[in-house]
């Protein structure tokens, strides 16, 4: 295939990118590991020396730790389920020939272009505000008492906001997968007497398996570290404190870099556990 020469040339050319990426990844990782073993309080004396595993035991021993892991997993799981299910439905609908297809598709993708902070603020103030929000008007119109979304149904609200942001991504990936399904296969199934539900179950869903896997994996990576949506809406209150939010609080609000870094290491471990589970469940869809 490649000659000796072209291979070493390729290595040489790739080296800067590889070194840059390695540095990009390794420097913060090493620093996190380093700080996690130090007693480091920036406003209260700075680096106060070696701390051993103190930070680790304190972080995990805090009463907020397990609830924050749970909150993280609930948000990730909830958003994944909503975006995949709605994404499949939307992809199937958008695949139908219809008038104004191009415009509709762009509109569907639009939420993805809105910054997380902005979209969370828009949701918080325009939709979910118990006094002036759109939902409050709807509830009042039907004579019901407006729901205080972000305090009474905080978890559901955040899942809703984040799902709204990620739905376009899921829809887009799934739509391309739907479009790549050979229409003759569907016609053959139709002639074989398969109803729409059977066609969906036996043909469309298996065909989408790989795209669904990609959506799940990519979204998980980003959702494990969501922050802005929580910061601008609940500020971590009402049971919506995720692991990344907890780390933020430890580092910035309590000014304890060592403790936060230990939390960061836990976050890495959690991400890896989730990744192993996911690869077990859906990873096999990626080969073949």
């Amino acid at each position, binding site marked *: 295939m490649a000659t000796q020469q072209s291979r070493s040339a390729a290595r040489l050319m790739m080296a800067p990118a590889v070194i840059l990426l390695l540095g990009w990844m390794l420097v913060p990782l090493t620093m996190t590991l380093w700080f996690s073993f130090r007693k480091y309080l920036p406003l209260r004396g700075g680096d106060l020396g070696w701390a051993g595993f103190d930070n680790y035991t304190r972080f995990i021993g805090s009463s907020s730790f397990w609830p924050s892991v749970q909150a993280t997993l609930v948000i990730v799981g909830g958003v994944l389920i909503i975006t995949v299910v709605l994404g499949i439905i939307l992809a199937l609908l958008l695949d139908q020939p219809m008038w104004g297809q191009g415009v509709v598709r762009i509109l569907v993708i639009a939420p993805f272009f809105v910054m997380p902070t902005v979209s969370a603020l828009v949701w918080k103030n325009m939709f979910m505000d118990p006094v002036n929000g759109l939902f409050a008007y709807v509830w009042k119109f039907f004579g019901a008492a407006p729901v205080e979304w972000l305090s009474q149904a905080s978890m559901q609200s955040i899942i809703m906001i984040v799902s709204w942001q990620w739905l376009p991504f899921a829809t887009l990936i799934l739509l391309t997968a739907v479009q790549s399904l050979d229409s003759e296969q569907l*016609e053959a199934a139709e002639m074989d007497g*398969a109803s729409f539900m059977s066609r969906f179950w036996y*043909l469309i869903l298996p065909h989408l398996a790989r795209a669904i896997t990609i959506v799940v994996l990519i979204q998980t990576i980003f959702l494990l570290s969501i922050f802005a949506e929580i910061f601008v809406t609940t500020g971590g209150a009402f049971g919506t404190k995720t692991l990344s939010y907890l780390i933020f609080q430890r580092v910035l609000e309590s000014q304890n870099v060592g403790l936060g870094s230990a939390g960061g290491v836990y976050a890495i471990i959690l991400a890896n556990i989730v990744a192993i589970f996911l690869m077990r469940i859906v990873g096999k869809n990626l080969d073949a």
Partner: protein
Amino acid sequence: MGSITLSKVSKSFGDVEVIPPLDLEINDGEFVVFVGPSGCGKSTLLRLIAGLEDLTSGAISIDGADATNASPAKRGLAMVFQSYALYPHMSVRKNINFPLKMAGMDQAEADKRINAAAKVLNLTDYLDRRPGQLSGGQRQRVAIGRAIVREPSAFLFDEPLSNLDAALRVNMRLEICDLHKTLATTMIYVTHDQVEAMTMADKIVVLHDGYIEQVGSPLELYESPVNKFVAGFIGSPKMNFVTGPSAQKRNADSIGIRPEHIDVSSESGEWEGVVGVSEHLGSDTFLHVKLADGGMINVRASGDLKVKYGEKIFMSPQEERIHRFDPQGLTI
């Protein structure tokens, strides 16, 4: 059972009328071939019969019952697609089982049918493979297997052999003919290859721009084509068309003569020409002869004819084999 009647069936895509109203009668047990050049509407006509496209007007009845608006599944027809359309993530067994499962058939009976079909089609060793692990010919057989287990009242084939190599195509052609003889089920077969049409059909339907030019048995079409299009389309190598004095002498606008109905001589004949390319096939020799006026005549001569490039030869059409056409191209 499997008689199909089309009456005044037409199909338009938007403003474009792909199939002008046509009538066609397909009898039970017949092997009917739709043949015509690319884009003439063969697939569209087949898909109309299958129920995969809606009619613009007209009616279709199957076994005497009106099926114009029946769903594809209700028509009791089975189709084999050009791309085979196998379900890629199911094993061969599951592929063949799919229509039976959809029909809610008892699994024991289904297995019996699958095994029987696999035996007929030589697929027994491949039942647990995925379609991706099969050769083109094997995939083709799986597609046929999926069609036969349903015991449909008619089979529809859309250019099923066009993805196969030449040798395999001849093989599968025979296998499909065999299958037709054993099952005695109506088969409708679409192809653009007139050799396939001639060798397989009981009845050929020649289509051109959506119109049915002629319907008849292979020999009828070969011996008495109704017009110049059918004359030129059926038969290989193609019929020669000649205008000018030879045609006028025979009271026609143009005459047609098949390459195999021309006698060659080195001394005298009606036409004189210079041999261009000659193709020696062993059994026959195809000569491409240039006439003085620039026209070309293809001649099929016996295999032992020795002629060289540039040699002058004389040709005479066999009088009783000449087809005469009027200015509209219709046979006189």
